[in-house]
């Protein structure tokens, strides 16, 4: 573990100056594309990701139609210029897999039964990539779905945690992901209290697994507040929640 020492110094400060449990700066924006039914943009550290939702619409090819629910399609793609060395634009094994896990993370929140015989398409395009782009993609895609006005049980929010040496850290960036000892992307539905994505690599002790998992959920809830804010800004003009509660005359 040659790189371990460099990633986190003796004061517990990481390469980019964060403590073990800090997030990178996150910026969220909803409704950024005119031609999509719903869209969102996320900047998470150095990640820059667009998510677009089209549909519900007719399913083509027809044989894929599901008679009782919508077909949720998902594509995660990295632009050729999103990484240091030009990436071949053809979908790689990794992108196909991430598309699959993003789809599965979102499908438990979307009420697909409300849109029988239709397709809902989610496109996640990574314009600039840093570590943790799948969870950033999920976070943006769920906002895009809400923007498109598709019935959802809850928003989905992702966050990753990992290991540097034996230290649990939150929100790995690209270097930490590659040089560190473990990565654990988690997506949750915060109001339902359910996990819709959990992937792990690296070797964890029981304690570290528990710690990393709980940290990911805690950080996810923090990002959920940013999601709320982004949606509120888009639809309610950013004004504070103004609920008038009156006692009915009875």
């Amino acid at each position, binding site marked *: 573990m040659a790189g371990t020492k460099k990633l986190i110094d003796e004061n517990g400060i990481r390469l980019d100056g964060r403590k073990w449990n800090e997030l990178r700066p996150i910026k969220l924006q909803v409704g950024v594309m005119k031609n999509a*039914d*719903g869209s969102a943009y996320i900047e998470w550290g150095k990640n820059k990701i667009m998510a677009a939702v089209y*549909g*519900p*619409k*007719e399913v083509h090819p027809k044989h894929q139609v599901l*008679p*009782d629910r919508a077909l949720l399609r998902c594509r995660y793609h990295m632009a050729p210029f999103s990484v240091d060395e030009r990436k071949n634009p053809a979908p790689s094994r990794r992108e196909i897999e991430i598309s699959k896990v993003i789809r599965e993370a979102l499908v438990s*929140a979307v*009420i697909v039964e409300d*849109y*029988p*015989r*239709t397709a809902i398409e989610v496109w996640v395009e990574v314009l600039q990539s840093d570590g943790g782009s799948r969870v950033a993609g999920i976070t943006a895609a769920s906002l895009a779905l*809400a*923007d*498109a*006005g*598709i*019935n*959802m*049980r*809850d*928003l989905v929010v992702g966050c990753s945690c990992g290991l540097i040496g034996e230290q649990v850290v939150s929100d790995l960036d690209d270097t930490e992901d590659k040089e560190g000892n473990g990565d654990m992307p988690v997506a949750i*539905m*915060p*109001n*339902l209290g359910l996990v819709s994505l959990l992937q792990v690599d690296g070797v964890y002790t029981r304690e570290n697994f528990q710690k990393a998992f709980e940290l990911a959920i805690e950080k996810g809830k923090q990002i959920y507040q940013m999601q*709320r804010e982004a*949606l*509120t800004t888009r*639809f*309610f003009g950013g004004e504070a*929640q*103004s*609920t*008038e*509660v*009156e*006692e*009915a005359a*009875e």
Partner: protein
Amino acid sequence: MPMIQRKQVIPGDVVAKGNYRYGSYIEKRGEEYVALRVGLAEVGRDGIKLNPFTGPYLPRTDDEVIGKVVDINGFGWVIDINSCFDGFLPASFVFGRDFSPATHDLSSKFRVGDILGARIESYERSRDPQLSIRGEGYGKISSGEIVKISPTKVPRVIGRRGTMINLISEKTGCDIRVGQNGVIVVDGSPDGIVEAIKAIRLVEAETHAPDLMSKVEAALGGGVVGGN
């Protein structure tokens, strides 16, 4: 029973707890009523309602829609009703029960590209919506300008008991037809049409502004535009 007005909600938010009647875009989870869309929720005597801000048009029986003929087959017309489902207008609804594909020419009635005002005769989740043009005012719309808005904003464009649409119509001297699917046909003098479309766009942009009526009235000016 507490009343809640204009509560801003996003998917997953709890609108209220207790025992209420509830409408679309709300799900009951135990004691809690949860919003499924972004919108404004109201809790009152007649239960919980959620007015969504965005969303696709899903057909409902008896909705009045405006659509475009996109295809003709032997038994009727396929109509794009701005939804994920195509509407179907059976030829027998137009020619009567003695319709036969051999004797009747469908394209003599409506051609591809024609705009129709129609009613959703029936719709259920397993089949595409069936349209009908029986009734007054339904059928081919031969003149006017088409404006598309988000279907969730149709109720605001119409206004309470049609007040908004009547206001725009009177001020601009235009004939305005609003389909529940978000398609609007505006017909009148060229100037009037321009003004009416501006007013509709204003309603669309400021759907949930308080006192929208007077804003629209101010935008349209005091005098009668374009008409005489």
